[in-house]
């Protein structure tokens, strides 16, 4: 009995270790993250998205590959001539898969808010009333889940900036948020090394908002 228990615990320890530190997964992710930085056109974008989806389908315990696939899908909708609504919907579909693996994750929540912002931008006249509070609320939730998440603060700063411009109000709130975002990005950068897989995007957006604050 003792031997069985010992064997079992050993096996579990091994399995746990393997999943926490899977070199094949990590190198596959690194390869796609590298490829992500060189995307020039829609075809390349789709190819990297597919790469992340392959990792996600093979490694069903990780939310990150779905996250990156959804992120690229969202960026593609903004960057390229595509059916934006369809792209945002598909990004949301990928996000709900990530959400099932890691519920209440701040990064996932920010990206969901970003997708909502994209849908809002397609038709602000008729979607504004419904979607702008929803986007604000989603970014608020992302901040609540992780106050150190620079992307949550930055996206909220962007929303606040848009609202302030629309209603002709002062940029103080947006500027404050952007400054906090930039501080958080500095903290995050200190942690980044060659093995860092988590999202790092958003600094440029924070700088943009902060840039309009002089």
């Amino acid at each position, binding site marked *: 009995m003792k031997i069985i228990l010992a064997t079992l615990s050993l096996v579990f320890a091994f399995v746990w270790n393997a999943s926490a530190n899977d070199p094949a997964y990590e190198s596959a992710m690194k390869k796609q993250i590298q490829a992500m930085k060189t995307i020039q056109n829609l075809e390349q974008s789709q*190819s990297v998205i597919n790469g992340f989806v392959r990792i996600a389908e093979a490694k069903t315990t990780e939310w990150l590959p779905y996250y990156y696939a959804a992120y690229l899908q969202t960026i593609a909708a903004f960057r390229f001539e595509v059916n934006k609504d369809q792209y945002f919907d598909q990004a949301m579909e990928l996000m709900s898969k990530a959400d099932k693996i890691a519920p209440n994750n701040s990064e996932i929540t920010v990206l969901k808010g970003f997708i909502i912002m994209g849908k809002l931008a397609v038709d602000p006249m008729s979607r504004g009333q419904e979607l702008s509070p929803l986007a604000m609320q989603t970014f608020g939730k992302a901040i609540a889940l992780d106050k150190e998440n620079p992307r949550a603060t930055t996206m909220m700063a962007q929303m606040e900036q848009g609202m302030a411009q629309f209603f002709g109000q002062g940029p103080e709130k947006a500027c404050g948020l952007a400054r906090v975002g930039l501080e958080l990005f500095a903290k995050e950068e200190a942690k980044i090394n060659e093995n860092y897989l988590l999202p790092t995007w958003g600094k440029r957006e924070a700088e943009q908002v902060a840039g309009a604050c002089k």
Partner: protein
Amino acid sequence: MKPIFSFLILFLWIQNLGFAQTNLLGKVLDGKNQPLPGVNVFLKGTFDGASTDQGGSFQFETAETGAQILVFSMMGFKSQEVIVELSGKTLEIPTLILKEEFNELNTVTISAGAMEASDEKKSVILRPLDIVTTPSAMGDIVGAFQTLPGTSTVGNDGRLFVRGGDASEVGIFIDGLRVGNAYGTTAGNVPTRTRFNPNLFKGTFFSTGGYSAEFGQALSSALALNTKDLAKRNQGDLSIMSVGGGYAHTLANEKRSLTVTGNLFDLKPYQGIIKQDFDWERAPYGSDLELAAQQKTAKGGLWKVLARTESGGMKLWQAQPGVADRGMLIQVKNTYSYSQTNWRKAYESGWSLFGGVSYSSNKDRLNFGGTEIERISQLTHAKWTASYDFSDHLAVKNGAEFFRNDYSEALTKENLERNFGDNQGYLFTEWDWYISQKFVLRSGLRAGFSALADQKWLDPRASLAYKISENGTLSLAAGRFHQLPEERFRVLNANLKNTESGHLILNYLYQKEGKTFRAEAFHKSYDHLVRFEGNPQNPQSVRNEGEGFARGFDVFFRDRESLRNTDYWITYSFVDSKRSYFQYTGQVQPDFAPKHNLSVVVKHFVPHLKSQLGLSWSFNDGLTYTDPNRPGEMNSKTGSFQNLSLSWSYLPRPNLIIHGAITNVTGHRNIFGYQFAQAPNEQGRFESMPLGQGAPRFLFLGIFFTISKDKNANNLNNL
């Protein structure tokens, strides 16, 4: 430990075989045999794979060996799996065709008769916000629909009239459940409104004919209102208006939400400032209390409750033709309640279930120059549906419904009462066949039973749509519709059977980013309509003997794109309708079916003013009436109806809206008919009085303020 050890050796051995790389290549085409780029081709359970290029080709290497599953996947397409044997050599996969999945974006939808307002769906005519911001609507749902094709504005009634049908022929549903007495009770010639606030709803589905087998007891039209899902945040909404005020409070979290609303209105102060043409003894007043709750249940179900109660009244003098004094004093007092609960859930197996019950109760206490009448109407509706998607090609919806209807009317002073009670049962089934992405066929059957009328009936319905170009769809719909006569007639003759109509509709819809063009032609037949002797105030020998028809066409054009910050729509409806009904012996054009109906709505957003300016203009060529001084029935027609309304919505802050609107800016003198004396005067003429508007114009001013104590907002301030 020995077996584990040997397992490890085996594992390493397999790993070592890995240097024998297999090279996979092949090509993927779409349903039209065109190369399909961007397809994800990979070995299941591994990271190995590639995307197809512009030519639809793929190529990748893998260290895996033996039998493996090769997956071809792309969003919007049906995935395919192929078993491959990897042997360390080049393996060419036979060319594969991926088929597109049918979904709302790429598949045709049936548009005959239907006009949908929703934020979620693509093929919509109006968005919920459009309803609130249509100037002539004054925040009334039905007011906004009166600018859509197939409807007529009857300015002294306010209800919805569709294609030569009277107002009772429009069935109104909330979350699929029937609403009894959906309009406020009013005195003759004072226009009414829908009782329900447009803010309750996330979407509406308005059909002017040929609608689904799901809807019954409506000869002309179905108006389905869908309530909002979970509220997003805690907030308070305060409204202060020229005619009253109200407050709504919402409590929400991720699982459930609750909104309680209370409103008061009274036109007395308004009428004190603005001169009225009606002789009011007591201006219309009322109050309402409403509760809406939503709760997410386990695994994606949603449970909703809506309850509303209201009371109100009015008192006015109605002058009589040929009589010099103030005329007859009419008093209306009304209490109304509506409550419903429903539950819906979609299962991953392809089933979705719905169940709900609604109860409407209306009580009117009327006084016509001393004659006291009390009317009580109660309607219970229970409904269950089960839908199943066999595949993306075939879906079915089945349902069962039960109605209980009680009605009584009494002369209170004389202690006389008459009443009836009826039980009705319905079964329906509807099948959607997607034959291709371009062609869909819907067929449905509805069976009904009424205990009081002692009648069973069947309504077959069918529609189809064919996509004739990238943006254009042609639809055809036909069906039979039954409706039991109005309560006021059934109480006189319990043996009254169903009235009947048959619809045939041909529709063309063109939709391209920001532009919608819609043209529809229709023919509608009527049979077994209610007829009687005498007049509508005192009908004698009520029977199902009337018949008639309505035919015509309507066109609609909406453009939200061409002019910057501007959205406009233009509607023209032509209706040629004749029927023998009520006291009319021959077939006549009814007094609610003007031939030519035109409306224009323009909304323009001015960013630097933070304002939306609105304009709406309605026109019809006049209503028919019978002039007893001339021979024949419905022998005369009023002048044209015209109404130009303007509105201004100003958003100084995200949580503050100031809205002002004015109807009939030009002060056009609209006449809706004439009231004639019961008997001729000494010269042998029937004296008459025009039925006009309560006032030339109506002015509205409102301030809407939202107070939000959002938890997230507080978090923000703490940063």
